[in-house]
């Protein structure tokens, strides 16, 4: 079917905000927020509890009393190899690892890169209920009497992007406040700025996965199936590269999915950062183009 190429952005904006309002007020939004806060809390505990013990063992009274320099040094010693493994850096002395630990508030860096590893999965969860159910139960038809297919698709996509962004912003601000309170030695402004930069990276990382769920929600009939398929897409490549990576050189395989590019957003080199940003946005655009292709050809 031919469709007018012009998109009614007023309608897209109206539907996006209405969907967002409903999600934030509804039970599913609250549930997701609690899940994310819980994940954040656990990650914070994983970061701060071993630090607390290390710092006490090193002679300081507590983590709260330790200077940022001491904390950073302990993070470098204890977490350096873990960070290097986590972000696929060659070693703990790599430029990217040193940048994360020394040039930026190290505790916030740790939290951001760990949470970035969960964003693809949380994005699959938050994005799975975009259109599949509404198309199956024909609620979409009541809406499509008043707006276009593309407008509906884009509003659902932007709705989950905004929701996901708001939730991760709440989490980052919560973490910044937690670190600022518990470790008063860190400059709060620097902590907040790095937190916000990291939050933007988290939003960009979520985009291809949310776009993937947009496409899948036009292909399969239930939200559950969208979640399962998007999760399979996300995990399959990771499992293959992590399991077989010990035997073969498979780092190139990760680059075939958004997963392989996400930590480039935390890299100190502007070229690497921009390349990762461009590739992640390109993945999102490809999935959205696939969704559009499917949408204008399918029966609703």
């Amino acid at each position: 079917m031919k469709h007018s190429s012009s998109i009614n952005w007023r309608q897209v904006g109206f539907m996006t905000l209405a969907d967002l309002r409903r999600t934030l007020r509804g039970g599913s939004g609250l549930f997701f927020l609690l899940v994310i806060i819980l994940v954040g809390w656990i990650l914070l505990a994983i970061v701060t509890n071993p630090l607390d013990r290390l710092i006490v063992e090193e002679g300081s009274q507590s983590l709260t009393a330790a200077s940022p320099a001491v904390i950073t040094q302990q993070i470098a010693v204890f977490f350096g190899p873990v960070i290097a493994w986590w972000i696929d850096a060659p070693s703990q002395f790599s430029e990217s690892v040193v940048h994360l630990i020394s040039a930026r508030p190290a505790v916030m860096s740790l939290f951001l890169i760990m949470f970035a590893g969960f964003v693809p999965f949380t994005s699959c969860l938050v994005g799975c209920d975009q259109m599949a159910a509404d198309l199956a139960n024909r609620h979409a038809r009541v809406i499509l009497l008043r707006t276009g297919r593309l407008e509906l698709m884009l509003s659902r996509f932007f709705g989950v992007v905004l929701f996901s962004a708001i939730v991760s912003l709440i989490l980052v601000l919560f973490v910044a406040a937690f670190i600022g309170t518990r470790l008063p030695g860190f400059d709060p402004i620097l902590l907040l700025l790095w937190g916000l930069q990291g939050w933007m990276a988290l939003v960009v990382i979520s985009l291809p996965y949310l776009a993937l769920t947009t496409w899948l929600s036009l292909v399969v009939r239930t939200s559950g199936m969208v979640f399962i398929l998007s999760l399979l897409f996300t995990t399959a490549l990771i499992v293959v590269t992590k399991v077989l990576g010990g035997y073969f050189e498979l780092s190139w395989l990760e680059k075939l999915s958004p997963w392989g590019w996400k930590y480039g957003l935390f890299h100190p080199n502007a070229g690497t950062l921009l390349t990762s940003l461009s590739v992640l946005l390109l993945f999102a655009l490809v999935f959205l183009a696939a969704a559009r292709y499917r949408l204008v050809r399918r029966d609703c």
Partner: protein
Amino acid sequence: MTVALQVTDLSKSFGQSVALRGVSFSIPTGSLYGLVGPNGAGKTTLLSLVAGFLIPDAGAISILGKDARDELPELRGRFSMLVQDAMLPRNRKIRETLTYLARLGGLSKQEAVQDVARVLEMCGLTDQASKRFRQLSHGMTKRLHVAQAFLGQPELIFLDEPTSGLDPENAAQIRKIILELAGESTVVISSHNLVELEETCTDLVILDEGEVAYAGSMHAFLSGGSLVRWTVDSPVDEGVLSQIRGLEGVVGLELKNPTTLHLTFEPSQTLGRHHIAKSVIETLLRHDIVPRTMAEGARLEERFLVEVGRAPTS
């Protein structure tokens, strides 16, 4: 005469199953149009194609003078539909959802609030406005679906099975609302309730096995046929029936009950309807059976069954 809907050579298949085959008809502006057909005839498919939910394999649709494929965005808010089997979100509030739909249709916030109040009042649902969809009975839900179709006062309204599953009181209320709309909007009603369509509609399209079996005015359809209903004062036995069957111009005869006959005439240039009727009356009188009432034409249901080849002819 302006045309509200023009369908030309429309075809649609689902895999190997052909739902519509070269369907063409037009609906004049301001008419109350009935869309009739047996199960699987393609009525809902036709409406879904018109609304743009389904993509046709071939053919063209023009709504209110605009191409429904290329100019659909310009038609938003100008036509509406009661979508069969569509779900409304169970946990959402009624007034809030209708206001959202009205605003999506192009009304300002204030206009939307006023229009929602209007359609809720029209469908007798004002006191339910604060409830959630899950709290409504089946009848109320149906009326609410009808109400959403009237939002924004569209020029063309499609109602797919507007009274199915409703009790007589609710069904009568919906019919009343539809009749009140006559003249303001063009209304197309798809229904299996032929009595309802006969009472409500000025024109009709009959679909059968994906093709148009009839398209035109209800009056012409009912009176243009050759069906005659006859009641007599005493039971008619088989001997009399066989004599009537043997009369020239009588092509069908059904004994509805011992004193009610349904005859199908086939007039010709040399033998008019009155001549055939006269022969029938004479035959009855010869057997001391007195005709009491005679009605030319037929109720829609009977005529429909003849048209789609399902009428029992004995």
